[in-house]
């Protein structure tokens, strides 16, 4: 009887200590968000091979609808074609970015524009679809040269940016996460703004700069290059509901997997800039 009581007390003390240490960790994380980044990286590395297996049935299901047979060679060929297609789409995007840059150059004359630089092409192996965090894991890490704060671009448009990086895997903060902020331009009017996530499938438009020209449904938003992480001219979203409040639909498929490009931060010192810390003043 005495032993039971002692055990119960011990259990309560252990539980209290554990919960207290958890709260301590949370507050500590608030002070230094980078703490434990190494541990996160190692965990990503351990989980990614397992996830590559876990996702196999989902891939199979997705493939079934498109009539992709279980034939091994066919699957391989499909994957190769998909890679080629992703590369082609990315080239198309680059072309569009070049066209925009050219137009700007004509206006400004002789402006040095940094080059976009591909770091790795990787596959999305998992997506966190909880209500709290919206992130994905990709199968490329520091071994491929990936670091934190790199833009991640899919075939149809911007996917997000890298946060935690392991040796062979990295976490991508998706556009839809409530922490995500992307500086954009409205392609039709040239107005600068921020695209923000709120955990739902649609995006918000925040902090519009300059004269308020009404948006139309179907207006395209492209990255502005402001902040230095995302290269300019990458398609981000289209206006879904001209509002108010304005709701946007991301162009890239953020769910379901695909190949993505991980590029170097657009400006060399981009990694220094904190996410979301975008200057309010934008020169058009």
């Amino acid at each position: 009887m005495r032993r039971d009581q002692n055990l119960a007390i011990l259990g309560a003390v252990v539980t209290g200590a554990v919960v207290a240490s958890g709260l301590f960790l949370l507050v500590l994380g608030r002070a230094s968000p980078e703490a434990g980044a190494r541990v996160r990286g190692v965990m990503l590395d351990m989980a990614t091979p397992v996830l590559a297996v876990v996702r196999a049935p989902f891939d199979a299901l997705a493939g079934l609808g498109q009539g992709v047979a279980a034939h091994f060679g066919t699957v391989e060929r499909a994957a190769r074609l998909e890679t080629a297609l992703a590369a082609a789409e990315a080239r198309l995007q680059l072309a569009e970015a070049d066209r925009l840059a050219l137009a700007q150059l004509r206006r400004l004359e002789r402006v040095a524009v940094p080059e976009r630089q591909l770091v790795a092409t990787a596959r999305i192996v998992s997506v966190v679809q909880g209500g709290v965090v919206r992130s994905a894991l990709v199968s490329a890490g520091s071994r491929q040269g990936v670091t934190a704060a790199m833009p991640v671009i899919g075939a149809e448009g911007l996917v997000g940016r890298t946060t935690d990086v392991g040796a062979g895997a990295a976490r991508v903060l998706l556009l839809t996460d409530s922490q995500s902020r992307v500086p954009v331009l409205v392609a039709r009017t040239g107005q600068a703004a921020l695209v923000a996530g709120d955990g739902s499938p649609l995006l918000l438009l925040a902090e519009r700069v300059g004269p308020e020209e009404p948006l139309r449904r179907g207006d395209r938003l492209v990255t502005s290059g402001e902040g230095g992480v995302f290269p300019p001219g990458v398609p981000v979203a289209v206006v879904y509901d001209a509002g108010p409040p304005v709701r946007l639909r991301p162009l890239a498929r953020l769910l379901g997997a695909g190949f993505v490009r991980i590029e170097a931060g657009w400006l060399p010192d981009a990694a220094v800039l904190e996410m979301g810390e975008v200057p309010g003043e934008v020169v058009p």
Partner: protein
Amino acid sequence: MAPAERRRFWLGHWRLAVPVASVLVLMLVMLAPLPLGMPAMPPLMVLAVLIWGIFQPGLMAPWLAFALGLVADGLMGQPWGANAVQLALVAVLVRGLEGRFRQRPHRRDWLVAALVLALAMLLEWLLMTLAGRPVPLRPMLWQWLTGVLAYPPLVALFAGLQRWLLGRAAGG
């Protein structure tokens, strides 16, 4: 104890690890890239801790739930401690409610589970705010809804798993 004997002793206790292993498997399922539009993935880990807390309170102690939560924090990119404190407190709460859960019709169970789940989601929201990363509440409402729907099949799954384990234990 001879090495062979010692090995048999440890291998004979692998069943004790099944609840923890099942939670880890569900964590990987939560990470699977499903083509879902809404944040509709049910909070499987909270449900798993809840259900094992009812079935086998000894095998889902709060400190164990805490450790599992830390793994989830690392894998899902949440601040260290957010899932950990949430799961630990769910385990504590279930221990407190254990007397009520026992010998009750399933529908009442479901109601209590829905309430515990709502408390857990609210707690997570509070913890994220404490960590300096406030999140909107509405996506969590979706998750609560899918979680409530996922409860009965998960109970059936774990009940089957437990029966299977007990059968194996009895059979040797």
